[in-house]
């Protein structure tokens, strides 16, 4: 016979699973969210930008200028879709969003190219989208090739060797991070809503008058979601492997252990939210409120090293930041948790902190 405390926690967990299985929408979300997000983000997110719409204003119209335009088009970075006859016309196209890159070759392009003093032509870039700027800068470095301007190339100082993702495939980078993103969304939301639902439907009023303690209630509520979180990890890993050949270089056991830590941290946050929110709607709003900074500041969307110091500090406080580093480390580089201790302890600390606050804040009373 189990101790009473465990029996009560188990009863709550069993009830929770039963309700989950009957709630088609939530159950669909458990499987549907990872499925959709992996497919959507895996295919959609691509930092290797190509085929930008471009317009050309070739005022010099020489053999050289025409071959430069042809070369730019051949790079596949830009597709020339329009022709302008002056710089203002080019600017107008850019402003109206017709094109995102304007290639301006001045009337004296030939002479400028020949002297080699300073740039010979101009690239106008729609800077309102920062990623385009980076791409255009790459295009600007394009040398006038041997054919267009015979000149010996200086050999570069460095040769770049790309470890762990030699083909520079975005999916390899995205899928490990997606595990964290999906867990953040579902785990926080489900736990927050699960407790608030009991409050909203009046179940809590009854439960409080029974011998169930706060810790038993929370353990029983959290338990099933740990299992669900691990199922979601498996779905993302399988899809990543099947659809995008995302490698698993490190040990799966290590990865699942890291996932367990992260799930715990997310559930802690969910519990904490549940002690603040009075209705399921409030719980959802609070979840979204914590979800956005996680997505934006964790290094999932924007490069972590590019952010200003204060944003990096916020990022360091978010469990997702550390978990993304862990999954990329374990999955792509084959790292162990011992070596990545610097990203392990913040997860543990976050879990301990949120859980303590939640238990302290959750009174076994109505007021």
């Amino acid at each position, binding site marked *: 016979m189990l101790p009473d405390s465990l029996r009560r926690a188990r009863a709550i967990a069993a*009830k929770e699973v*039963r309700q989950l299985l009957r709630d088609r929408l939530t159950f669909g979300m458990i499987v549907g969210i990872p499925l959709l997000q992996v497919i959507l983000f895996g295919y959609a997110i691509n930092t290797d930008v190509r085929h930008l719409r471009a317009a050309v204003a070739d005022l010099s119209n020489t053999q050289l200028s025409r071959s430069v335009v042809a070369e730019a088009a051949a790079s596949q970075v830009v597709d020339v879709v329009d022709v302008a006859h002056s710089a203002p016309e080019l600017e107008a196209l850019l402003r109206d969003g017709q094109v995102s890159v304007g290639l301006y070759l001045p009337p004296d392009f030939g002479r400028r190219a020949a002297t080699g003093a300073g740039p010979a032509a101009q690239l106008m870039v729609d800077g309102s989208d920062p990623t385009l700027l980076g791409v255009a800068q790459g295009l600007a470095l394009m040398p006038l090739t041997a054919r267009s301007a015979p000149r010996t190339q200086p050999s570069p100082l460095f040769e770049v060797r790309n470890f762990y993702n030699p083909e520079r495939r975005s999916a390899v980078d995205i899928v490990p991070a997606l595990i964290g993103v999906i867990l953040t969304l579902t785990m926080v939301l489900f736990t927050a809503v699960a407790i608030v639902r009991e409050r909203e*439907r*009046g179940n809590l009023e009854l439960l409080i*008058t029974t*011998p169930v303690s706060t810790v038993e209630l929370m353990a029983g509520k959290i338990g099933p979601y740990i299992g669900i979180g691990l199922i979601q990890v498996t779905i993302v890993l399988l899809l990543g492997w099947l659809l995008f050949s995302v490698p698993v270089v490190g040990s799966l056991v290590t990865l699942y252990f890291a996932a367990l830590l992260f799930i715990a941290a997310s559930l802690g946050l969910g519990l904490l939210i549940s002690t603040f929110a009075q209705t399921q709607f409030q719980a959802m709003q609070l979840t979204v409120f914590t979800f956005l900074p996680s997505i934006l500041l964790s290094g999932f969307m924007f490069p972590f090293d590019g952010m200003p110091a204060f944003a990096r500090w916020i990022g360091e406080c978010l469990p997702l930041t550390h978990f993304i580093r862990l999954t990329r480390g374990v999955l792509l580089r084959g790292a162990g948790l011992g070596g990545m201790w610097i990203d392990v302890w913040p997860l543990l600390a976050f879990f301990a902190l949120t859980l303590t606050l939640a238990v302290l804040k959750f009174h076994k009373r109505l007021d």
Partner: protein
Amino acid sequence: MAGDYAIETHGLTRRFGKFTAVDGIDLRIPKGKIYGFLGPNGSGKSTTIRMLCGLLEPSGGEATVLGHRVPQEAEALRRKLGYMTQSFSLYGDLSTRENLEFMAEVFTLSPAKRKARIQEAAERYFLTQLMSQRAGTMSGGQRQRLALAAATLHSPEMLFLDEPTSAVDPQSRRDFWDRLFELASEGTTILVSTHLMDEAERCHGLAIISKGKLVAEGTPRELMEKTDAQVLEIDAPEPQQAAKLLKQQSYVKSVTQIGTRLHALLDKDARDGAKQLTQLLKGAGLDVEVKEIDANLEDVFVASTGFQSESEAKHAA
């Protein structure tokens, strides 16, 4: 003396901000009886019950339930208490059996006892046919039987029922009360809050609560006998007109129309009420017949809640 009463309170008070929901209530509720809280909505019945269950912390005063001080010793009480909330608070997406099994586990009944008690409850509360039906799809009366079965599964010594029959038809209500009397005869103390007169009349003891204060207490019969109101029944051909006239008199505290008759409550101080009224109405050219009758519980209620606004009293009725 502590052993004689299931509940004792002294000056029990609860404030929500500036609003005093329960104002210095003193209670002594004997064991093994059905004790009723009668009062209009918002009078503080639920708040009092919630404090006695340990759900809310009192702002002042003290309370002892089954010899345990609340809220300090509320945890020790949990196994001895059954609580049926005002709105259905079991799980609508679980079946009757699943709900009962859940409650049995929460109260950690042994497997053998769990099976026996669920079987027993199913028979006693006519749930056998409903065992695999989800609670959310059941009628108000069925859900209420399930809630009572769940609240009594662990054989509590004390049962709190917060307006248990507000969403139930009269026949179900009568059946429900039969079950309550069975439980009381088995030794369970029952505290039930209600705003229904017919329910209140069936309690062994009754406390009338108004605006957070206890305004009258006793058995329903005692309350009816010792009320300070004179009750008159007036047979009038034009009751509307008569009622209008009566309401203008300061000593007439309440007038209710029942069919073609009027039911009037008079100040105790008003001397010869019947004669006075007959004169008044006949003087106005109305051919009436006035006779003095015994107060019913509703009259007691209206009189002791300080003759509140009519709508409030009617609502409570």
